[in-house]
């Protein structure tokens, strides 16, 4: 067994872990990254399309290019990197944490860390999660798995493809599979609006004349050994209208039906999760309910843009650094999602500092008004031309916008709402 001791241990070497580790190292902390894949960069490495980095670098980069902007500096910053190493458990150890990882090269590695940064990212929802009926033949993939098979392994998953769900990865794969010679027969989305970005609908679906069925469901997958067809039905008042159902022959089904923050480790470590995000409940310092354990990136809540993951993770790292230096926690006030808002992250605000929040709308709306209310009174508002659930809203709040003294009895004193 190898034993290591660091100030901060970062679990996950994807976009969140890289940005957090770099920023932490810049503050002088000793940092280690544990990554289960044999390389850094996480899922970015299979995202060979462009569109990354517009906010962060003002450039249009591919996933691997974006990752490389961080991997290079991480390699020279004096950060310990453990690759091909899977974290198995996190336990408390005095004021710090004990993290146990396994790796083929090094066997059992036990870390002692004063702070842990959870940056494990997310996983794809699958067929079982949305209970699609029918048979279980070969040829059903989550979109990310198909992306991996094409872009890294060089395999063509199938020839005639139906994509269930219009999440961004599914849309990207509609284009990617068309470019490698597959025929994408349809993208089927249960909601009356796409769940991916407007840009991806235009550039990946419309530009290739791929039929997009909004408000439709795949009610059945057929085929004994390999997928042979799917049944598609329009939704009427929330139920499939089987009378108007139609069949699309295909040999491959891709699922792009959402992502789930990967919190099995966090939960086992006693971290309380937020129902709205499926990520940890964190305060204005990105600290979870477990002291010294922080979270950022897609493990905290699923982001649309990697640029925002980077920004959030860097801010998280600054709070971790403050924690390591013994700075006080600050004055936290709970923030709640109000009408038409699914969640606000972080769930609390340090009233003495400037904070940035991300929120996810529940509705599609033009000319929306974003309001921050304290005891019902609007303290900040912002007009937004268009909001939709697939596009996260970034909300900066200056210090002092929310008064430090609030009646302790009130339960939902501060809320963020869209009207």
């Amino acid at each position, binding site marked *: 067994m190898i034993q290591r001791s660091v100030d901060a241990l970062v679990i996950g070497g994807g976009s969140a872990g890289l940005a957090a580790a770099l920023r932490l190292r810049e503050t002088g902390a000793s940092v280690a990254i544990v990554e289960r894949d044999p390389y850094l960069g996480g899922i970015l490495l299979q995202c060979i399309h462009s569109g990354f980095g517009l906010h962060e670098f003002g450039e249009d980069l591919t996933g691997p290019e974006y990752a490389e902007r961080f991997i290079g500096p991480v390699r020279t910053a004096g950060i310990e990197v453990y690759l091909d190493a899977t974290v198995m458990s996190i336990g408390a150890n005095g004021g710090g944490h004990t993290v146990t990882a396994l790796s083929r090269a090094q*066997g059992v590695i036990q870390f002692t860390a004063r702070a842990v940064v959870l940056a494990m990212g997310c996983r794809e929802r699958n067929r079982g999660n949305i209970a699609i*009926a029918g048979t279980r033949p070969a040829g059903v993939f989550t979109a990310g*798995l198909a992306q991996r098979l094409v872009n890294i392994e060089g395999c063509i998953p199938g020839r005639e493809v139906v994509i269930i769900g219009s999440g961004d990865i599914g849309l990207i794969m509609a284009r990617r599979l068309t470019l490698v010679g597959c025929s994408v027969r349809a993208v089927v989305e249960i909601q009356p609006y796409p769940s991916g970005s407007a840009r991806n609908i235009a550039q990946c679906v419309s530009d290739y004349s791929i039929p997009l069925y909004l408000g439709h469901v795949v009610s059945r997958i057929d085929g004994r050994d390999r997928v042979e067809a799917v049944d598609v039905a329009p939704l009427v008042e929330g139920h499939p209208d089987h009378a108007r159902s139609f069949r699309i022959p295909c040999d491959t089904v891709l699922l792009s039906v959402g992502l789930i923050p990967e919190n099995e480790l966090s939960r086992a470590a006693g971290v309380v999760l937020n129902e709205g995000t499926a990520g940890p409940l964190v305060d204005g310092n990105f600290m979870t309910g477990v002291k010294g354990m922080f979270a950022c990136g897609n493990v905290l809540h699923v982001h649309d843009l990697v640029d925002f993951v980077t920004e959030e993770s860097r801010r998280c790292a600054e709070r971790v650094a403050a924690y390591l230096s013994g700075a006080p926690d600050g004055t936290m006030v709970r923030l709640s999602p109000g009408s038409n808002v699914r969640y606000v992250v972080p769930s609390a605000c340090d009233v003495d500092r400037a904070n940035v929040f991300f929120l996810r709308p529940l509705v599609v709306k033009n000319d929306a008004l974003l309001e921050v209310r304290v005891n019902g009174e609007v303290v900040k508002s912002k007009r937004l031309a268009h909001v939709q659930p697939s596009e996260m809203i970034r909300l900066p709040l200056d210090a002092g916008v929310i008064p430090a003294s609030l009646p302790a009895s009130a339960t939902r004193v501060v809320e963020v709402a869209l009207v």
Partner: protein
Amino acid sequence: MFDVAIIGAGVSGAAIARRLSSYRLSVALLERCADVSFGVSKANSGIIHAGFHHAPTSLKARLEIAGNRAFDVLQAELGFPFRRAGIIVAAFSWEEMKVVDHLYTQGVENGAPGLEVVGRDRILALEPTLSEDVVGGLFAPSGGIVEPYRFVIALVESAVANGVQLRLLWEAAAARWDGQAWTVRSASGDSVEARWVVNAAGLRADTVSSLFGAESFTIVARKGEEFILDRGARGLPSHVIFPVPTRNSKGVLVIPTVEGTVMLGPTAEEDPDKDDTSTTPENLDRVFQLATRMVPRISKRDIITAFAGLRPTLPGDDFFIRLSACAPHFVQVAGIQSPGLTASPAIAEYVKDLLKGAGLTLTEKTDWNPRISPREHTRDHAPWELDRLVEKDPAFAHMVCRCETVSEAEVVEAIRKGHTTLDGIKYYTRAGMGRCQGGFCTYRVMQLVARETGMPLERITKHGPGSEIVKGRLGSGT
């Protein structure tokens, strides 16, 4: 020339093969699919029944009790996951309690050990996840849970280690008796000669019977849909929970599986198509309605997958195990549905006795080894206690399936033992059986199969020919 050819490597064929492997006999085990346990047995609920469901006059009841008793020794020898978790039948009315009384009497008569009729307080103390509406029920401590495919795989591994020859993708297509022995031809033109043939062909026992000119009967597939909830799911019971049975079915159960997930089901519907293992949204709703009536805290949100199995049923619903009255040297093992898994060790014993009675000479091997080498799993150890395992093979420290904590060493072991399809590897190791359903490990397992077998990625299948995972390679022009 074999002494015995067994058609079908499901739980019956596997148990018979292993039983016969203890005698000086040459035995062939012929399986139509790409791996063992790929038919009826793979979708079994994995319950070791306690022996109170069937009338004392039935062959089922007799073999169920004897089979149940055999599992402790079998587990010690073969190391498959098995636990006597106990079975509870939950009654929700005084009418249902009358049926419970009947089950108790029947079970006692059958010889089921430790049965108890329990009142509301006792049943809730035993199983606090039950609905408060429960009136009472039956408690059967000898009932258990097992991983059905792991049980079949272990039986076959033991049989093969003791000399049984296993042929996969071997579908019996024709048979001829020459007065001394059977010549059985496969669909692909291969042939096997054997003095005795055992028909353990599950759903196709009727077809196989007619190939040999034996009894004419029809196996009807009775489909059962099942739903799996994630490990650590809300409201997880610790006993197998049955409703009070109806005439046709033991009902929809809540089953804590031996590996920590929860299974709900099965439904019971006759299906004209013996290959139709499709699931339906209607049954999902129905199963949840029935299951939550007994165990209210389980949630649809915890579903990770659904599947359907097919029970091979015969009219009269009893097992049909006998020497054929029409075909020479032919043993029927048909209609083996619930409690077939439980009964399988006793079925094997019964078939062995039939063969002996019919004149097959059985001489015990002096070197028969009932044990197979124990398997190691990374998940069975606390991570900080893994040094010993990792020293033996560093691949135990390389995680392939994160949801079920399956290491590279375990996947490689499966491949080296001949399980080279993704489903076969899944049944052997659990890789791909967890909450992400292979989203993470599929390509990792494919890479290991390619590395270990030299097979190109595009030839790797889910469950045999025709179920290739990918259709080609970039730039290959295919």
